[in-house]
Protein backbone atom coordinates (compact mmCIF):
# COMPACT_ATOMS: atom_id res chain seq x y z
CA UNK A 1 0.00 0.00 0.00
CA UNK A 2 1.85 3.02 -1.28
CA UNK A 3 -0.28 5.97 -0.12
CA UNK A 4 -0.43 7.42 3.37
CA UNK A 5 -4.24 7.76 3.41
CA UNK A 6 -7.07 5.47 2.32
CA UNK A 7 -10.82 5.68 2.54
CA UNK A 8 -12.95 2.65 3.42
CA UNK A 9 -14.21 2.76 -0.17
CA UNK A 10 -10.65 2.52 -1.51
CA UNK A 11 -9.79 -0.40 0.80
CA UNK A 12 -12.94 -2.29 -0.19
CA UNK A 13 -12.16 -1.63 -3.87
CA UNK A 14 -8.57 -2.74 -3.29
CA UNK A 15 -9.76 -6.05 -1.83
CA UNK A 16 -12.12 -6.54 -4.80
CA UNK A 17 -9.29 -5.85 -7.25
CA UNK A 18 -6.94 -8.02 -5.15
CA UNK A 19 -4.49 -5.09 -5.02
CA UNK A 20 -3.63 -5.97 -1.43
CA UNK A 21 -4.27 -8.56 1.29
CA UNK A 22 -5.61 -8.13 4.83
CA UNK A 23 -2.05 -8.51 6.12
CA UNK A 24 -1.00 -5.56 3.91
CA UNK A 25 -3.85 -3.42 5.26
CA UNK A 26 -3.26 -4.17 8.93
CA UNK A 27 0.52 -3.73 8.51
CA UNK A 28 -0.05 -0.38 6.84
CA UNK A 29 -2.14 0.95 9.74
CA UNK A 30 0.15 -0.55 12.35
CA UNK A 31 3.08 1.29 10.72
CA UNK A 32 1.09 4.53 10.52
CA UNK A 33 0.51 4.21 14.25
CA UNK A 34 4.24 3.93 14.88
CA UNK A 35 5.20 6.66 12.40
CA UNK A 36 2.56 9.21 13.30
CA UNK A 37 0.87 8.60 16.65
CA UNK A 38 4.08 7.69 18.38
CA UNK A 39 6.50 10.00 16.56
CA UNK A 40 4.37 13.15 16.86
CA UNK A 41 2.99 12.35 20.32
CA UNK A 42 -0.53 12.78 18.95
CA UNK A 43 -2.02 10.99 21.97
CA UNK A 44 -5.15 9.95 20.05
CA UNK A 45 -4.90 6.36 21.32
CA UNK A 46 -5.41 5.14 24.90
CA UNK A 47 -5.23 1.38 24.29
CA UNK A 48 -3.84 -0.41 21.26
CA UNK A 49 -4.76 -4.09 20.86
CA UNK A 50 -1.83 -6.47 20.56
CA UNK A 51 -1.02 -7.67 17.06
CA UNK A 52 -1.95 -11.20 18.15
CA UNK A 53 -5.45 -10.15 19.29
CA UNK A 54 -5.92 -8.13 16.10
CA UNK A 55 -4.75 -10.95 13.83
CA UNK A 56 -7.10 -13.42 15.55
CA UNK A 57 -10.08 -11.09 15.09
CA UNK A 58 -9.14 -10.21 11.50
CA UNK A 59 -8.74 -13.90 10.59
CA UNK A 60 -12.47 -14.40 11.23
CA UNK A 61 -13.36 -11.94 8.45
CA UNK A 62 -12.99 -12.34 4.67
CA UNK A 63 -12.25 -8.64 4.12
CA UNK A 64 -11.27 -7.19 7.50
CA UNK A 65 -10.61 -3.46 7.91
CA UNK A 66 -9.17 -1.87 11.07
CA UNK A 67 -11.30 0.69 12.92
CA UNK A 68 -10.93 2.66 16.12
CA UNK A 69 -13.53 2.95 18.88
CA UNK A 70 -14.00 6.01 21.08
CA UNK A 71 -13.04 4.79 24.54
CA UNK A 72 -16.60 5.01 25.82
CA UNK A 73 -17.64 2.09 23.59
CA UNK A 74 -17.47 -1.14 25.61
CA UNK A 75 -15.21 -3.68 23.92
CA UNK A 76 -15.30 -7.14 25.45
CA UNK A 77 -12.08 -8.03 27.28
CA UNK A 78 -10.38 -4.87 26.02
CA UNK A 79 -9.80 -2.12 28.58
CA UNK A 80 -12.39 0.67 28.29
CA UNK A 81 -11.63 3.77 30.32
CA UNK A 82 -13.98 6.55 29.16
CA UNK A 83 -10.67 8.49 29.34
CA UNK A 84 -11.24 8.75 33.08
CA UNK A 85 -9.16 7.60 36.06
CA UNK A 86 -12.41 6.18 37.41
CA UNK A 87 -12.25 3.37 34.81
CA UNK A 88 -8.50 3.22 34.24
CA UNK A 89 -8.43 -0.54 34.77
CA UNK A 90 -11.99 -1.47 33.74
CA UNK A 91 -12.39 -4.46 31.42
CA UNK A 92 -15.92 -4.77 30.00
CA UNK A 93 -17.35 -8.32 29.97
CA UNK A 94 -19.39 -7.45 26.89
CA UNK A 95 -19.22 -5.34 23.73
CA UNK A 96 -21.48 -2.50 22.65
CA UNK A 97 -24.07 -3.43 20.01
CA UNK A 98 -22.45 -1.03 17.52
CA UNK A 99 -19.06 -2.66 18.10
CA UNK A 100 -20.56 -6.10 17.43
CA UNK A 101 -22.42 -4.96 14.31
CA UNK A 102 -19.29 -3.35 12.89
CA UNK A 103 -17.20 -6.43 13.69
CA UNK A 104 -19.72 -8.70 11.91
CA UNK A 105 -19.31 -6.45 8.88
CA UNK A 106 -15.52 -6.86 8.94
CA UNK A 107 -14.55 -3.72 10.86
CA UNK A 108 -12.11 -4.93 13.51
CA UNK A 109 -11.41 -2.59 16.43
CA UNK A 110 -7.65 -2.12 16.86
CA UNK A 111 -7.42 0.99 19.03
CA UNK A 112 -9.43 2.64 21.82
CA UNK A 113 -9.47 6.33 21.17
CA UNK A 114 -8.87 9.23 23.53
CA UNK A 115 -11.65 11.67 24.36
CA UNK A 116 -12.72 14.10 27.06
CA UNK A 117 -13.33 12.01 30.19
CA UNK A 118 -16.89 10.63 30.05
CA UNK A 119 -17.30 12.71 26.87
CA UNK A 120 -17.51 15.93 28.89
CA UNK A 121 -15.88 18.61 26.80
CA UNK A 122 -15.30 20.23 23.44
CA UNK A 123 -11.51 20.13 23.10
CA UNK A 124 -10.26 16.76 24.38
CA UNK A 125 -8.45 18.53 27.23
CA UNK A 126 -10.64 17.00 29.93
CA UNK A 127 -9.10 13.58 29.30
CA UNK A 128 -7.34 12.03 32.30
CA UNK A 129 -4.93 10.51 29.75
CA UNK A 130 -3.65 13.83 28.41
CA UNK A 131 -4.93 16.01 25.57
CA UNK A 132 -4.84 14.99 21.91
CA UNK A 133 -3.11 17.10 19.25
CA UNK A 134 -4.65 18.29 16.00
CA UNK A 135 -2.72 16.74 13.05
CA UNK A 136 -3.26 19.96 11.06
CA UNK A 137 -1.75 22.11 13.84
CA UNK A 138 -0.01 20.21 16.63
CA UNK A 139 -0.34 23.03 19.18
CA UNK A 140 -4.10 23.26 18.62
CA UNK A 141 -6.90 21.02 19.84
CA UNK A 142 -8.65 18.65 17.46
CA UNK A 143 -11.93 19.53 19.16
CA UNK A 144 -13.92 17.19 21.39
CA UNK A 145 -15.22 15.27 22.98
CA UNK A 146 -14.33 12.74 20.22
CA UNK A 147 -10.81 14.19 20.04
CA UNK A 148 -8.95 10.93 19.49
CA UNK A 149 -11.47 9.67 16.91
CA UNK A 150 -11.07 12.81 14.80
CA UNK A 151 -7.29 13.09 15.15
CA UNK A 152 -6.66 9.40 14.39
CA UNK A 153 -8.78 9.46 11.22
CA UNK A 154 -7.28 12.78 10.09
CA UNK A 155 -3.78 11.38 10.67
CA UNK A 156 -4.48 8.17 8.77
CA UNK A 157 -3.85 5.96 11.81
CA UNK A 158 -7.18 4.27 11.10
CA UNK A 159 -9.56 4.84 8.17
CA UNK A 160 -12.63 5.43 10.38
CA UNK A 161 -13.62 5.71 14.03
CA UNK A 162 -16.73 5.42 16.12
CA UNK A 163 -17.68 8.43 18.19
CA UNK A 164 -20.60 9.98 20.05
CA UNK A 165 -22.36 13.32 19.75
CA UNK A 166 -24.34 14.63 22.70
CA UNK A 167 -23.77 18.36 22.13
CA UNK A 168 -21.61 18.40 19.01
CA UNK A 169 -18.92 15.91 20.01
CA UNK A 170 -18.71 14.34 16.55
CA UNK A 171 -19.49 17.31 14.33
CA UNK A 172 -17.22 19.76 16.15
CA UNK A 173 -13.96 17.73 16.10
CA UNK A 174 -14.65 16.55 12.54
CA UNK A 175 -14.89 20.16 11.39
CA UNK A 176 -11.60 21.04 13.07
CA UNK A 177 -9.73 18.10 11.51
CA UNK A 178 -10.92 18.11 7.88
CA UNK A 179 -12.92 14.92 8.38
CA UNK A 180 -16.59 13.95 8.02
CA UNK A 181 -18.64 13.61 11.20
CA UNK A 182 -22.11 12.05 11.33
CA UNK A 183 -24.55 12.52 14.18
CA UNK A 184 -27.48 10.28 13.25
CA UNK A 185 -31.06 10.82 14.38
CA UNK A 186 -31.48 9.99 18.08
CA UNK A 187 -32.55 6.34 18.18
CA UNK A 188 -31.20 5.45 14.72
CA UNK A 189 -28.24 3.50 16.14
CA UNK A 190 -28.09 1.58 19.41
CA UNK A 191 -26.56 3.16 22.51
CA UNK A 192 -26.29 -0.22 24.27
CA UNK A 193 -22.81 -0.67 25.69
CA UNK A 194 -21.79 2.94 25.17
CA UNK A 195 -21.05 4.57 28.51
CA UNK A 196 -23.99 6.91 29.02
CA UNK A 197 -23.59 10.65 29.36
CA UNK A 198 -26.96 12.32 28.67
CA UNK A 199 -29.45 9.57 27.94
CA UNK A 200 -31.96 11.78 26.13
CA UNK A 201 -29.42 13.26 23.68
CA UNK A 202 -26.47 10.80 23.30
CA UNK A 203 -26.16 9.87 19.64
CA UNK A 204 -24.01 7.03 18.27
CA UNK A 205 -22.10 8.02 15.16
CA UNK A 206 -18.72 8.01 13.50
CA UNK A 207 -15.93 10.00 11.89
CA UNK A 208 -14.63 9.13 8.43
CA UNK A 209 -12.54 10.67 5.67
CA UNK A 210 -15.41 10.91 3.19
CA UNK A 211 -19.20 11.08 3.01
CA UNK A 212 -19.44 7.73 1.18
CA UNK A 213 -17.57 6.06 4.05
CA UNK A 214 -19.96 7.66 6.54
CA UNK A 215 -23.03 6.31 4.73
CA UNK A 216 -21.36 2.89 4.46
CA UNK A 217 -20.92 2.71 8.24
CA UNK A 218 -24.44 3.92 9.00
CA UNK A 219 -25.73 1.05 6.85
CA UNK A 220 -24.05 -1.23 9.40
CA UNK A 221 -24.89 0.45 12.71
CA UNK A 222 -28.44 1.68 12.03
CA UNK A 223 -31.42 -0.33 13.18
CA UNK A 224 -33.54 -1.33 16.11
CA UNK A 225 -31.83 -3.08 19.02
CA UNK A 226 -33.87 -4.97 21.64
CA UNK A 227 -31.15 -4.01 24.15
CA UNK A 228 -31.83 -0.26 23.63
CA UNK A 229 -35.49 0.61 24.07
CA UNK A 230 -34.92 4.08 22.60
CA UNK A 231 -33.94 2.74 19.18
CA UNK A 232 -36.44 3.30 16.42
CA UNK A 233 -38.43 0.47 14.83
CA UNK A 234 -38.52 2.48 11.62
CA UNK A 235 -36.98 0.30 8.90
CA UNK A 236 -33.45 1.21 7.88
CA UNK A 237 -32.58 2.02 4.28
CA UNK A 238 -29.51 1.75 2.08
CA UNK A 239 -27.87 5.11 2.74
CA UNK A 240 -25.66 4.71 -0.33
CA UNK A 241 -28.56 4.23 -2.75
CA UNK A 242 -29.23 7.91 -3.50
CA UNK A 243 -25.88 9.37 -2.51
CA UNK A 244 -24.94 10.52 -6.03
CA UNK A 245 -28.33 12.07 -6.74
CA UNK A 246 -27.08 15.63 -6.34
CA UNK A 247 -28.90 18.59 -4.82
CA UNK A 248 -30.64 20.21 -7.78
CA UNK A 249 -33.75 21.98 -6.48
CA UNK A 250 -33.18 20.84 -2.91
CA UNK A 251 -34.35 23.62 -0.59
CA UNK A 252 -31.60 24.40 1.92
CA UNK A 253 -32.38 26.78 4.78
CA UNK A 254 -29.91 29.37 6.13
CA UNK A 255 -30.92 30.01 9.76
CA UNK A 256 -30.01 33.58 10.61
CA UNK A 257 -29.39 32.89 14.31
CA UNK A 258 -26.46 30.61 13.36
CA UNK A 259 -24.51 33.41 11.69
CA UNK A 260 -24.42 35.88 14.57
CA UNK A 261 -21.13 36.39 16.47
CA UNK A 262 -19.13 34.11 14.18
CA UNK A 263 -15.46 34.79 13.46
CA UNK A 264 -15.38 36.67 10.11
CA UNK A 265 -12.78 34.22 8.72
CA UNK A 266 -15.22 31.37 9.35
CA UNK A 267 -18.05 33.40 7.81
CA UNK A 268 -15.98 33.74 4.60
CA UNK A 269 -15.60 29.98 4.38
CA UNK A 270 -19.31 29.52 5.07
CA UNK A 271 -20.36 32.08 2.50
CA UNK A 272 -18.14 30.48 -0.14
CA UNK A 273 -19.81 27.15 0.71
CA UNK A 274 -23.23 28.75 0.13
CA UNK A 275 -22.15 29.89 -3.34
CA UNK A 276 -20.92 26.37 -4.11
CA UNK A 277 -24.26 24.88 -3.00
CA UNK A 278 -26.10 27.29 -5.28
CA UNK A 279 -23.82 26.36 -8.19
CA UNK A 280 -24.75 22.73 -7.52
CA UNK A 281 -28.39 23.66 -7.97
CA UNK A 282 -29.72 24.02 -4.42
CA UNK A 283 -32.24 26.71 -3.60
CA UNK A 284 -31.06 28.67 -0.54
CA UNK A 285 -33.87 29.94 1.71
CA UNK A 286 -33.40 32.31 4.67
CA UNK A 287 -35.13 30.88 7.76
CA UNK A 288 -35.30 31.58 11.46
CA UNK A 289 -34.91 29.37 14.54
CA UNK A 290 -35.82 31.95 17.19
CA UNK A 291 -34.99 29.89 20.31
CA UNK A 292 -31.41 29.08 19.23
CA UNK A 293 -29.69 31.16 21.89
CA UNK A 294 -31.91 29.74 24.64
CA UNK A 295 -30.87 26.25 23.59
CA UNK A 296 -27.37 26.47 25.09
CA UNK A 297 -28.77 27.37 28.54
CA UNK A 298 -31.36 24.59 28.33
CA UNK A 299 -28.63 22.20 27.21
CA UNK A 300 -26.37 23.09 30.15
CA UNK A 301 -29.16 22.29 32.57
CA UNK A 302 -30.48 19.10 30.96
CA UNK A 303 -27.02 17.70 30.27
CA UNK A 304 -25.49 17.92 33.76
CA UNK A 305 -28.80 16.80 35.29
CA UNK A 306 -28.80 13.57 33.31
CA UNK A 307 -25.05 13.20 33.79
CA UNK A 308 -25.46 13.39 37.57
CA UNK A 309 -27.90 10.51 37.32
CA UNK A 310 -25.83 8.42 34.90
CA UNK A 311 -22.58 8.87 36.81
CA UNK A 312 -24.35 7.75 39.99
CA UNK A 313 -23.53 4.15 38.99
CA UNK A 314 -19.80 4.76 39.49
CA UNK A 315 -19.76 3.69 43.09
CA UNK A 316 -16.27 2.17 43.16
CA UNK A 317 -17.87 -1.07 44.34
CA UNK A 318 -18.97 -3.07 41.28
CA UNK A 319 -16.28 -1.54 39.09
CA UNK A 320 -14.00 1.46 38.94
CA UNK A 321 -12.29 3.71 41.45
CA UNK A 322 -14.15 5.61 44.17
CA UNK A 323 -15.86 8.85 43.31
CA UNK A 324 -13.02 11.10 44.40
CA UNK A 325 -11.21 9.99 41.20
CA UNK A 326 -13.60 11.93 38.95
CA UNK A 327 -11.92 14.79 37.05
CA UNK A 328 -12.77 18.45 37.59
CA UNK A 329 -15.28 18.74 34.72
CA UNK A 330 -17.16 15.60 35.77
CA UNK A 331 -17.36 16.91 39.33
CA UNK A 332 -18.66 20.27 38.07
CA UNK A 333 -21.36 18.60 36.01
CA UNK A 334 -22.38 16.21 38.78
CA UNK A 335 -22.73 19.14 41.17
CA UNK A 336 -24.71 21.35 38.76
CA UNK A 337 -26.93 18.43 37.81
CA UNK A 338 -27.61 17.39 41.37
CA UNK A 339 -28.51 20.99 42.19
CA UNK A 340 -30.86 21.36 39.19
CA UNK A 341 -32.69 18.15 40.11
CA UNK A 342 -32.84 18.79 43.85
CA UNK A 343 -36.05 19.51 45.73
CA UNK A 344 -37.04 23.14 45.43
CA UNK A 345 -35.01 23.75 42.27
CA UNK A 346 -36.24 21.02 39.91
CA UNK A 347 -39.14 23.13 38.52
CA UNK A 348 -37.14 26.30 38.00
CA UNK A 349 -34.22 24.55 36.29
CA UNK A 350 -34.75 21.04 34.86
CA UNK A 351 -38.47 21.33 34.11
CA UNK A 352 -38.01 24.83 32.66
CA UNK A 353 -35.16 23.58 30.47
CA UNK A 354 -37.36 20.76 29.18
CA UNK A 355 -40.04 23.30 28.26
CA UNK A 356 -37.46 25.37 26.37
CA UNK A 357 -36.42 22.12 24.68
CA UNK A 358 -39.99 21.82 23.36
CA UNK A 359 -39.70 25.33 21.89
CA UNK A 360 -36.41 24.41 20.17
CA UNK A 361 -38.08 21.32 18.69
CA UNK A 362 -41.07 23.36 17.49
CA UNK A 363 -38.69 25.82 15.75
CA UNK A 364 -37.24 22.92 13.73
CA UNK A 365 -40.66 21.43 12.96
CA UNK A 366 -41.83 24.73 11.48
CA UNK A 367 -38.64 25.21 9.46
CA UNK A 368 -38.69 21.69 7.99
CA UNK A 369 -42.08 22.50 6.51
CA UNK A 370 -40.33 25.17 4.41
CA UNK A 371 -37.00 23.50 3.57
CA UNK A 372 -35.48 20.03 3.14
CA UNK A 373 -32.19 20.70 4.95
CA UNK A 374 -30.34 23.41 6.82
CA UNK A 375 -26.69 24.39 6.39
CA UNK A 376 -24.80 26.23 9.11
CA UNK A 377 -21.27 26.87 10.32
CA UNK A 378 -20.03 24.41 12.96
CA UNK A 379 -17.77 26.45 15.19
CA UNK A 380 -18.08 30.13 16.08
CA UNK A 381 -14.29 30.38 16.40
CA UNK A 382 -11.21 28.83 14.86
CA UNK A 383 -9.69 25.79 16.53
CA UNK A 384 -8.53 26.82 19.99
CA UNK A 385 -4.86 26.40 20.92
CA UNK A 386 -4.21 23.72 23.52
CA UNK A 387 -4.63 25.34 26.93
CA UNK A 388 -6.80 28.21 25.70
CA UNK A 389 -10.29 27.04 26.63
CA UNK A 390 -9.58 24.64 29.45
CA UNK A 391 -9.53 26.98 32.45
CA UNK A 392 -12.74 28.71 31.53
CA UNK A 393 -15.70 26.30 31.72
CA UNK A 394 -18.11 28.75 30.09
CA UNK A 395 -15.74 29.52 27.21
CA UNK A 396 -15.59 25.76 26.65
CA UNK A 397 -19.39 25.45 26.76
CA UNK A 398 -19.88 28.28 24.22
CA UNK A 399 -17.91 26.32 21.60
CA UNK A 400 -21.01 24.11 21.26
CA UNK A 401 -23.47 26.94 20.71
CA UNK A 402 -24.23 25.93 17.08
CA UNK A 403 -24.26 22.22 17.89
CA UNK A 404 -26.62 21.61 20.82
CA UNK A 405 -29.91 22.42 19.10
CA UNK A 406 -29.65 19.27 16.95
CA UNK A 407 -29.13 17.15 20.06
CA UNK A 408 -32.06 18.69 21.93
CA UNK A 409 -34.30 18.05 18.93
CA UNK A 410 -32.83 14.61 18.16
CA UNK A 411 -32.33 15.51 14.49
CA UNK A 412 -29.36 14.25 12.43
CA UNK A 413 -26.38 16.36 11.39
CA UNK A 414 -23.40 15.86 9.08
CA UNK A 415 -20.27 17.98 9.34
CA UNK A 416 -18.11 18.10 6.20
CA UNK A 417 -14.82 19.83 5.30
CA UNK A 418 -15.45 23.31 3.89
CA UNK A 419 -11.99 24.74 3.50
CA UNK A 420 -9.15 26.21 5.51
CA UNK A 421 -8.08 29.39 7.26
CA UNK A 422 -4.33 29.11 6.89
CA UNK A 423 -3.65 25.55 8.01
CA UNK A 424 -6.74 25.30 10.19
CA UNK A 425 -9.63 23.23 8.78
CA UNK A 426 -13.14 24.69 8.86
CA UNK A 427 -16.29 22.61 8.41
CA UNK A 428 -19.94 23.24 7.71
CA UNK A 429 -22.84 21.17 8.94
CA UNK A 430 -25.99 19.98 7.23
CA UNK A 431 -28.96 19.40 9.53
CA UNK A 432 -31.95 17.34 8.50
CA UNK A 433 -35.31 16.30 9.81
CA UNK A 434 -35.60 13.08 11.82
CA UNK A 435 -34.43 10.05 9.80
CA UNK A 436 -33.41 12.16 6.77
CA UNK A 437 -29.78 10.99 6.87
CA UNK A 438 -30.01 10.07 3.16
CA UNK A 439 -30.52 13.79 2.34
CA UNK A 440 -27.55 14.76 4.47
CA UNK A 441 -25.37 12.28 2.58
CA UNK A 442 -26.73 13.48 -0.77
CA UNK A 443 -25.87 17.10 0.01
CA UNK A 444 -22.57 16.28 1.72
CA UNK A 445 -21.44 14.06 -1.15
CA UNK A 446 -22.30 16.60 -3.85
CA UNK A 447 -20.49 19.36 -1.97
CA UNK A 448 -17.49 17.16 -1.15
CA UNK A 449 -17.01 15.92 -4.71
CA UNK A 450 -17.26 19.50 -6.03
CA UNK A 451 -14.74 20.95 -3.54
CA UNK A 452 -12.40 18.00 -2.80
CA UNK A 453 -11.16 19.58 0.47
CA UNK A 454 -10.77 16.13 2.05
CA UNK A 455 -7.75 15.50 -0.19
CA UNK A 456 -5.62 18.09 1.63
CA UNK A 457 -3.38 16.20 4.03
CA UNK A 458 -2.24 17.35 7.49
CA UNK A 459 1.31 18.67 7.86
CA UNK A 460 1.94 17.65 11.51
CA UNK A 461 3.47 21.02 12.43
CA UNK A 462 2.83 23.63 15.09
CA UNK A 463 1.46 26.92 13.79
Amino acid sequence: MKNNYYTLQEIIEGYTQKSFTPADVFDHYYNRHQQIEVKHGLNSVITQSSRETTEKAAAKQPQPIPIGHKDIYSTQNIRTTAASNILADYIPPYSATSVKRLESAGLVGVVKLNCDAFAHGATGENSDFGPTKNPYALNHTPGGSSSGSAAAVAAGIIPAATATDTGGSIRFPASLTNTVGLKPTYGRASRYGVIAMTSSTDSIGHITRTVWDSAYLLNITAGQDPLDATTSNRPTENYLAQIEQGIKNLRIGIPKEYTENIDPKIMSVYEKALTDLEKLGAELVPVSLPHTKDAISAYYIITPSEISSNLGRFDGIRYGMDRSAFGAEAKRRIMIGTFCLSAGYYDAYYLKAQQVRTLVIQDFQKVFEQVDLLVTPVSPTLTPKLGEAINDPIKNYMLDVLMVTANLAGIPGLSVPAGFVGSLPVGIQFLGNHFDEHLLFQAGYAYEQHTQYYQREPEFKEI
Partner: protein
Amino acid sequence: MQIDIEKIAKLAALPLSEEEKSTLKPQLDQILDFVEALKSVDTTNIAPTVQVTGHTNVWRTDKAIAGLTTKESTMNARKSANGLIITEQVLSYEE
Protein backbone atom coordinates in the same frame (compact mmCIF):
# COMPACT_ATOMS: atom_id res chain seq x y z
CA MET B 1 -27.69 32.00 42.16
CA GLN B 2 -25.58 30.59 44.96
CA ILE B 3 -25.08 26.91 45.48
CA ASP B 4 -24.88 25.20 48.90
CA ILE B 5 -21.76 23.15 48.16
CA GLU B 6 -21.86 21.01 51.31
CA LYS B 7 -25.48 20.00 50.81
CA ILE B 8 -25.11 19.25 47.09
CA ALA B 9 -21.87 17.32 47.53
CA LYS B 10 -23.62 15.15 50.12
CA LEU B 11 -26.63 14.55 47.82
CA ALA B 12 -24.24 13.71 44.97
CA ALA B 13 -22.13 11.39 47.18
CA LEU B 14 -19.11 13.28 45.87
CA PRO B 15 -16.14 13.51 48.23
CA LEU B 16 -14.59 16.95 47.77
CA SER B 17 -11.44 18.32 49.38
CA GLU B 18 -11.53 21.81 50.91
CA GLU B 19 -9.43 23.02 47.99
CA GLU B 20 -11.86 21.54 45.48
CA LYS B 21 -14.80 23.12 47.29
CA SER B 22 -13.23 26.58 47.11
CA THR B 23 -12.29 26.21 43.41
CA LEU B 24 -15.67 24.76 42.49
CA LYS B 25 -17.91 27.26 44.27
CA PRO B 26 -17.26 30.30 42.03
CA GLN B 27 -17.25 28.10 38.89
CA LEU B 28 -20.62 26.58 39.80
CA ASP B 29 -22.12 29.98 40.66
CA GLN B 30 -20.89 31.28 37.31
CA ILE B 31 -22.42 28.35 35.41
CA LEU B 32 -25.74 28.84 37.20
CA ASP B 33 -25.73 32.53 36.28
CA PHE B 34 -25.09 31.49 32.68
CA VAL B 35 -28.20 29.30 32.64
CA GLU B 36 -30.34 31.87 34.51
CA ALA B 37 -31.05 33.33 31.05
CA LEU B 38 -33.82 30.75 30.73
CA LYS B 39 -35.95 32.53 33.33
CA SER B 40 -36.85 35.20 30.76
CA VAL B 41 -38.15 32.68 28.16
CA ASP B 42 -41.95 32.50 27.98
CA THR B 43 -42.95 28.86 28.43
CA THR B 44 -46.63 29.38 29.32
CA ASN B 45 -48.63 26.31 28.32
CA ILE B 46 -45.56 24.60 26.87
CA ALA B 47 -45.28 20.91 27.78
CA PRO B 48 -41.82 19.69 28.81
CA THR B 49 -40.00 17.31 26.44
CA VAL B 50 -38.62 14.32 28.28
CA GLN B 51 -37.48 12.34 25.26
CA VAL B 52 -37.61 12.71 21.51
CA THR B 53 -38.36 9.17 20.30
CA GLY B 54 -42.13 9.38 20.49
CA HIS B 55 -42.11 5.85 21.96
CA THR B 56 -44.20 4.89 24.95
CA ASN B 57 -43.76 1.50 26.61
CA VAL B 58 -41.41 -0.75 24.63
CA TRP B 59 -42.01 -4.41 25.37
CA ARG B 60 -40.15 -7.64 24.82
CA THR B 61 -41.25 -11.28 25.08
CA ASP B 62 -41.20 -12.56 28.65
CA LYS B 63 -38.62 -15.24 27.96
CA ALA B 64 -35.52 -15.85 30.06
CA ILE B 65 -32.29 -15.19 28.18
CA ALA B 66 -28.68 -15.64 29.26
CA GLY B 67 -26.96 -12.65 30.89
CA LEU B 68 -23.54 -12.20 32.41
CA THR B 69 -22.05 -15.10 34.37
CA THR B 70 -21.14 -14.63 38.03
CA LYS B 71 -17.47 -14.52 37.04
CA GLU B 72 -18.09 -11.82 34.42
CA SER B 73 -20.22 -9.68 36.70
CA THR B 74 -17.69 -9.73 39.55
CA MET B 75 -14.51 -9.48 37.51
CA ASN B 76 -14.14 -5.71 37.92
CA ALA B 77 -15.14 -5.43 41.58
CA ARG B 78 -12.40 -4.08 43.85
CA LYS B 79 -13.37 -6.59 46.53
CA SER B 80 -15.18 -9.84 45.89
CA ALA B 81 -15.35 -13.34 47.36
CA ASN B 82 -17.42 -16.49 46.82
CA GLY B 83 -19.02 -14.99 43.73
CA LEU B 84 -20.23 -12.00 45.74
CA ILE B 85 -19.24 -8.35 45.62
CA ILE B 86 -18.14 -6.94 48.97
CA THR B 87 -19.44 -3.47 49.90
CA GLU B 88 -19.21 -1.12 52.84
CA GLN B 89 -21.73 -1.58 55.61
CA VAL B 90 -24.93 0.29 54.74
CA LEU B 91 -27.12 -0.36 57.76
CA SER B 92 -25.85 0.09 61.28
CA TYR B 93 -27.26 -1.59 64.34
CA GLU B 94 -27.63 0.09 67.68
CA GLU B 95 -27.01 -2.11 70.65
